[in-house]
Each structure stands twice: as structure tokens, then as C-alpha cells.
């Protein structure tokens, strides 16, 4: 049992770390050309961050086993963040 939990935490950490390393690729900038706003980079950065946040909620903070109210609230916050961040980005770019 103990070993099983340990292994699960290790796998969770490996997943989180790999997503983090993906940022090196997503966020890399070609030094030759000027940096331009990019909806693809922005959306993927935000979505990746929120996926990581949800994994932390579920695994590290153990909402996996929590009562349904707490699960809903934490998931609700993740959704709210997605709506707010992507919404303000796309809305701001559209009205500019």
C-alpha cells in the first residue's frame, strides 16, 4: 500500500515536470525574428498551467477523495480561471 502511494506520487510528479519542460519548447523565441502576440502560445500556456493546477488539486491536495462540494469548488475555480484568463485575452485582443 505504502509503495503504491509512493509510486503514484512519483508518477504524478513526473507528469507535472514533463509538462513544465514542454514550456521550454512552447515559450522559446526565435532570436532572429521579432516576437509577436500569439493566441496559440497563450492558450496552450494557460491550458497547460490549468491542467497542472488540477493535477495538483486532485493528487497532491487529495481532492480526489474529498467530498463532492470541495471537488466541485476546486474544479469550478479551474474553469473560472480558464474562462477569465482566456476570455480577457481574446476579448482584449479583439477590441484593441
Amino acid at each position, binding site marked *: 500500500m505504502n509503495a503504491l502511494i509512493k509510486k503514484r506520487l512519483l508518477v504524478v510528479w513526473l507528469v507535472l515536470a514533463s509538462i513544465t519542460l514542454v514550456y521550454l519548447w512552447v515559450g522559446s523565441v526565435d532570436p532572429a525574428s521579432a516576437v509577436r502576440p500569439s493566441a496559440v502560445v497563450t492558450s496552450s500556456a494557460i491550458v497547460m*498551467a490549468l491542467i497542472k493546477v488540477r493535477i495538483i488539486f486532485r493528487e497532491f491536495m487529495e481532492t480526489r477523495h474529498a467530498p463532492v462540494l470541495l471537488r466541485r469548488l476546486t474544479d469550478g475555480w479551474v474553469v473560472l480561471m480558464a474562462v477569465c484568463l482566456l476570455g480577457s485575452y481574446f476579448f482584449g485582443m479583439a477590441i484593441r
Partner: protein
Amino acid sequence: MTDLAGAGPRPHRVDGKPDAKDGNKPAEFVPGQPDMWAFVLFEALVFTSYFVVYMIFRTRSPELYLQSQAHLSLRIGVFETLVLLVSSWSMARCVQAARQGAYRSALTNALLTMFLGVVFLVAKVFEWTRLIRMGFGFSSNEFFSHYFFLTGIHFLHLLIGFVAVGVIVYQLRSPARRSQELVETGATYWHTVDFLWIVIFALLYVVR
């Protein structure tokens, strides 16, 4: 100093362990004080508002933000994220160990978490000095105001996190205390510092 409240009157939760029952559906439980979860959710909402303000102002002058952002080092940011992720991991291991009664291992993991927190702080201070040497301060421009504000307020949360881990260490050290609830409460706070940083990192270093 006496131990923090909640340790005394409430018995250690034994039945709340996941997988404690022989059935395949583990019992539901709230990790740590529900009160701490109220704090986490409230503070998360406050940060959401900071993030939205940042995103809106960003789209109003994207060139300025992009140019300033280019001076940040993505590698340092990724390094800091990884450090915090390791610290969260060891914090989660600490909670599991304490739940199973392996207090020695739990204590080691808590101290490891603290050490990684210090590593993060040092990296952060290094990053700030680097930027200030390059001539970018809190009031240099809008992007750097947001950058220093968000990283600064996060830094402060991390410093408070040392108090939380300090409480955990204090609880674990003596057999007379060892409130599993307080260990989980402190861990919840620490993970909050971690997930807030993950969003801040994405917004400050990567978003275009």
C-alpha cells in the same frame, strides 16, 4: 508556545484515510481543516482578479509587454517551477508518511520541502537582482510593475508558507502532538503556493 489550535480537542482522524476501508471505494474526507480550504479558495479568487487585471492591461499594449518579457529568463522560470514541484511532491509524501505513522520519514520530507522553498527563494532573489542590474525595477514600466508585484506577493505567500511548514515540523517532532489535521492543513497551504506559482509562471514568462 502551546500547539496550534485544533490539535487538542479533535482526535486524530483514523477512519478518514483513503483506502482504509476494505471496500474498493475509499471514504470521503477533507484534507486538513476545512477552514484552510476556505482561505485557499478565497485567496485563489483574489489572485484570479490580479491575473485578469494583468491580462487586460497586457492586451492594451502588447508590444511593450512582449519586449519587456523578452528580458526574462524562461530557463530560470522553468527551474523555479521544477523546484516548487519537487517541494510539493515531498510535501505530499510527508502527509502520506505521517498518515501511516512513519513520522521520521514525514519529518525528513517536511524539512526537504523547506529546503526546496529556500532554493526557490534564492533563485527568485537572483532573478530579481539580475533584472535590477539590467535596469528594470518595480516602476520601470507596466510589465515590470506587474512582474514584480505578482512575483513579490507570491514570494510573501511563500514566506508565510515557511510558517506553515514550521507548524508541521513542530507537530511531527514530538509524539505528544502529531496532529494529522494540522499537518494536512499546512500541506494544503504549501500546495496553494505551488499552484499559484504555476499560473504566475505561465502568465508572466510564456503568454504572448
